[in-house]
Every structure is written in C-alpha cells, then in structure tokens.
C-alpha cells in the first residue's frame, strides 16, 4: 500500500522548545489513522506541518506522493478542533467559499453540498447563518466544509469532542463513508475508545517523539497479557496488600489491575479473601497504555 503521508526524520523547534523530534511516520493510503498524545505533545504541530501551515526545520514530508506539501493543498482538507467558521455567513455560502478555495466550481459543489446537508440533517439550515446553529450542527457544517471538495486526505482534529452521542454517531458514520469513498483519514483524539474502534492504525506522540505506531493488536502485543479485570463482592478493598499488583484502575463495580506476577496465583489469593464473580486476563486497553506512557512521563 502506498503512503498518503510520509514523514522522514522531521523536527520542528519553537525557540528552545523542540515540539517534534526526529519523527518518522508512514500513513498508508485509504487508512483511518489515529493520532493520540497528551496536550502539548506535538500532535497539532505535526498536523500543521502536514497541512503546510508550518514548515519543518529538519527532515522531509511527502503528502499524497508529492514532496511539496503546498502542491497537495487542494487535495487535503482540515477540520480544526475549534470550529473555524464565519459566524455571520450563511451555511451554503460558507460551504461554497471553502470548496472554491480547494479549486472546485460552484456547479461542482452545489450537488455535493445538498447531498451532505441532506445526509447530516441540515437541509433546512442551508440559508441560515452559522451563528444560529447549535454546537453539534456547527461541527457537522465544519465536517461538510472539509469533505465537500472530495479530498484525498482528510485531517480531523478532535472531530467528536463535545458532541452528544447521536451527533457523534452521525459524524462517525460520515467519517467511515468518506473512507469508503477512498479518502485517507487522519484524526487526532483524546477518546481512546473511539480510536480503538475506528482506527486501522494508531500513532502516539509524546514530548515530540513517536512512542507508539501500529495496529491496536500490535501495540497491545508489546505490553503482553499483564492486565486482569476483576468483579468481586468486596470490590477494591479486597485488593489491598495483595502481592504482584503494579497499579489498580478502580471503576467502582470493576477493577482493572496491572499485574507483575502469575495471574492464577493472584486469583487464588483473591478468592481466599472474597467471592470473585468475574476474573479476566486481558491485554491492556489503549487508555491504559496511554496513561502508562503519559502518566509515567516516559515511554
């Protein structure tokens, strides 16, 4: 599979701060690629370099087969985390404007705009000003603005943040539909569950360096079967003082325990203390892996 984005040894500095540090990355064409990382880790800087908003200090970036990221500009679309919409512009006028800036004509755009507005339930809002829309509607309009030019590469920054479940579901379907049409999708998110479910591959950046890159299975495999999920009569109180526990993530009804020792021996000791209803040896979740990396402050 060819790479939609290829970063080779890319570094970006802002004064004394190195925002992105010798990053190498291949995003395959047609994939949904998740960018994760704590705030200030270098995600947005990386996305901005891919968008040609910033230029790298070192290294090379290839977008859609072109080493000149500016040349690919019309085939790449971007949805920022905060809605980049003109509040006083009518929805259709705004979508036409953004589409025309990507090289499309109004004749090409109008049927696509109508199609997307219908699909996302915004047909009646086409001639209304953006400032009259709810947050969810604005997010959907922003999404349409980013796909209406039928880009080859779509970059979404926190596309589902702040959305209610219904709107999040609608937008998720729209993202998958876009991918089915052949668009490569890169999105950054703090929602690990969404990344686990939607992404073909996941990349994590921390302090400007790549710390994870691969499919969910490949990433989880690096950490082995060191996690047990427990539901017991005594809850987290029963775990106090048991040997082999490295960390406990207490969800109230369920405890997720990272274990250093033998799970069978641990189960035996726990059962001696309380009634155990559920005991599952599992790979760590993406959330857990994220917390291990970002929480410990090292990879």
């Amino acid at each position, binding site marked *: 599979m060819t790479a939609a984005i290829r970063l080779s040894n890319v570094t970006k500095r802002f004064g004394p701060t190195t925002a992105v540090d010798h990053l190498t990355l291949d995003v395959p064409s047609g994939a949904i690629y998740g960018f994760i990382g704590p705030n200030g880790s270098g995600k947005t800087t990386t996305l901005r370099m891919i*968008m*040609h908003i*910033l230029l790298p200090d070192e290294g090379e970036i290839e977008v859609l087969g072109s080493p000149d990221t500016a040349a690919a500009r019309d085939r*790449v679309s971007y*949805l*920022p985390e905060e809605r*980049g919409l003109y509040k006083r512009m009518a929805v259709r006028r705004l979508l036409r404007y953004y589409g025309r*800036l990507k090289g499309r004509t109004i004749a090409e755009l109008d049927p696509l705009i109508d199609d997307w507005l219908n699909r996302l339930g915004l047909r009646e809002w086409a001639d209304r000003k953006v400032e009259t829309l709810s947050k969810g509607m604005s997010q959907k309009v922003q999404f349409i603005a980013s796909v209406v030019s039928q880009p080859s590469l779509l970059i979404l920054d926190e596309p589902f943040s702040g959305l209610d479940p219904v709107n999040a579901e609608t937008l998720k379907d729209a993202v998958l539909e876009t991918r089915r049409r052949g668009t490569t999708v890169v999105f950054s998110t703090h929602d690990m569950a969404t990344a686990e479910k939607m992404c073909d591959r996941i990349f994590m950046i921390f302090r400007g360096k790549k710390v994870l890159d691969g499919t969910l299975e490949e990433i989880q495999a690096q950490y082995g079967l060191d996690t047990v999920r427990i539901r017991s009569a005594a809850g987290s109180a029963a775990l106090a003082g048991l040997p082999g526990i490295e960390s406990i993530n207490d969800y109230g009804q369920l405890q997720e325990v990272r274990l250093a020792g033998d799970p069978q021996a641990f189960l035996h000791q726990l059962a001696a203390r309380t009634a155990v209803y559920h005991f599952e040896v599992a790979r760590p979740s993406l959330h857990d892996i994220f917390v291990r990396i970002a929480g410990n402050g090292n990879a």
Partner: protein
Amino acid sequence: MHKTFIVASSEFNTLTRSKAFLIGLFLMPVFMGAAVALQRTGRDQTDGKDRLLAVIDRTGVLYGPLKAAADEWNAAGASNADGARTSPRFLPSAVNPDSGTPESLRAELSDRVRRDELYAFVEIPANALEPGVTETLRYHSNHPAYRLLPDWISTTLNREIVNQRFRVAAIDRATVARLTRPLRLEQLGLVTRDERGELKAAEHVDEIKTLAVPAAMMVLMFFAVMSTTPQLLNSTIEEKMSRISEVLIGSVTPFQLMMGKLMGSAAVSLLLACVYLAGGFAVATHWGYGDAVTWSAMTWFLLFLILALFIFGSVFIAIGAACSDLKDAQNMMTPAMLLLMLPAFTWFPVARSPDSPMAMTLSMIPTAAPFLMLMRIAVPPGPPFWQVAASVSITALTVVGAVYAAGKIFRTGLLMQGKAATLAEMWRWVRAH
C-alpha cells in the same frame, strides 16, 4: 491569483452585506442633509429674548445715542412668518455713575446679573471721547460666549465716539469717509485663449472651487479609508481567534489570503467612493459647479485612494494578525490612527498655501501624501509634475514595503495565540527569512 480573487470576492460580499456598509453608504448623505437642514432651521430660529443692559456712562453724552440706537435696532428686529421676533431686543437703562464708588456699583450690578435681573452691564470711561485714550469700554456678563450684544455695543458706541471726536475737531465725517473709502480687490484667474486664439476674459476666483472642492475630496477619501480598513483588523482577529485562518491557510498561502482581504476591502471602499463621487458630481452640477469636479481630479482621487487603502489596510491587517483580541489591538491602533489623522490636522494650511515648503514636505510623507497631494493637485494651478511623480513613487514604494511587511507579520502572527506581539517581535518577523 485565482484564489486571491475568491478571497477578495468573499470579503467584498461579506462587507457589502454588512449593516456597517449600509450605514456607511447612507450616513454621509444623511449627515450632510442633516447639516443643511439644521442650518436652515437655525436661520429661522427665533431668539426673541430681551437683553436688559445697565449702562454706567461717565461721559454723560453717550447713553442717549446708545438708547436711540437700541430703539432703532428693536424696531428693525426681524420677524419670521409667524410674526415672532428672530432677534433679541436690547433694553438699556442708565445707571447714575455717582450713586456709588466704581467698585460698589460693579458689585451691585454683578449681583443683579446673577439674579437674572440684568443680562449684562457696560461701563463707559469718563475720557472716552478724548482722542488717543487707552482706557476700555468694560462689558460685564456671565454669558461670555454670547457675542451679539457686546459686538453691537462696541460698534454702536465706537461709531458715536468717532462721530463726536470729528465734530469736536470740526472735520466733516462724510468727507473723510469718501476720501478714505478703499477699493475692493477682485480676485481673478488668468486671461486665456480659445482654440481660435481669441482672448477669453479672466474668471472670478471662486472660493468653493478653490477650497471647498479639494477639501470635500480629501474628506471623501478619509471617509472611504476609514469605512473599511479598520474592519480588516476586526476580521483578521476574528479569523485568527476562531481558527478560521488555520482552515484558510490549509487552502491558500498567507500572502494570497492577505492580498485577497486587502483587495476585497479596497473594492468596497472604491465602490463607496464612486457612489459618493457620482452623487457629489450630481450635486455640484445642480449648483453650477459641475466643471469643478474634473475627470483629471477624479482619476488622481482614485489612484491616491487605492494607494491609501493598501497602506492603511496592510497596517491594520498586520496589527490584527499580531494581536489576540481587540483590547490588545487598541494600543497598537493609536500610532496607526495618528498617521491617518495627520492630513486632517494639516489640510487647511496646505490648502491655503499649497506651494509652501511645508505643503510640499507633508505631501511627500507616504501616509499623508494620498490626501495632501490630492488636495494640492485640486487647488489651481497645482504642484509641479515632478512633485506629483515623486509623491506617487514614494507612496507606491511604501505600499510595496507595507504589503511585504504585513505579509510577513500576517504569516507568523496568524498562528500565534495567547499574547499580542510586541513591536520588536513584529520587526523580527519582518526581517526573518
């Protein structure tokens, strides 16, 4: 270039659909209409309030003529259609100078003025009729801004004092007046020849043509610049803070975006200016001044307007890109606004003496040149061509420099969030490769 026009067209549409544009379009004619209406209303306004005046006449001979003049004034007072007086009555009353010391009299009359029993009082010195006297007529009132009464008193008393001095000197006042009557100076243009070589009489110099038309063009240019360029600052800040700029510069280069905004804004100003020029031309033609608004003047006006729009537009865009909110921008706006206001402070001496060294110097300063050189061109005979060429060249070079610097500041500032850039930082951005 195509994308620059798309940005410009969007900017033009947004600005012309805004309430600010519609207000701007109608505001000037409304203001002008209101000013004319106010003048007309003011002309018919009545001020029929009586002005009671106490007179301490230490000469003993001037109160009588003053009273007679007041009666004449009151009898001749204009009335409007309803029969109401449109000018006040002056009602003098004599005060015996010997009824107290000068200080006590002044104090007593001042109290009467405070109690509104009098409007004012005047004191005529005893030696007022002597030639070469240095004493003054003392007029006391608590309405210092009201000029009609003191001016009338001064004129009336001085006329009577001079008459009496002539009489004492046995000189006929009428003869003196005839002998000393000055000749009126008539200001004319130059004699010209028509196509057949025949001489044409010189025309009278018309104040409206020589001063009002150039001033009106400068005001119109000022209005056109002010109506759109400061909005570039607001729109740049809005685009920056709501991250619209990030979406846009994913599609166009920062320079294309900035030029598009500048061109769109300039197009709106030009539209406004053309509407007003057409309106102004129609009004001028109606009043017989159609020939005062020449094609040449309009061409220079449009050229200088474009230069002014690009200079100030670049400045406001750069400030918008360097700031994070309007509060930050206010501080940086001050020097830019002072530059913009410079012609407003200096236009009158330039119009009165358009070929003075000061006028020439000011019309070479790039931020003032579009306004002041235009004014110099509009006032006959106009400046030498080399000065016009130098002014246009300096301003055009400044436009190039301003657009280049603004482009650099725009590119960097647009992505900078959180705090406003300092002038030193902006200068570093301009110099950065």
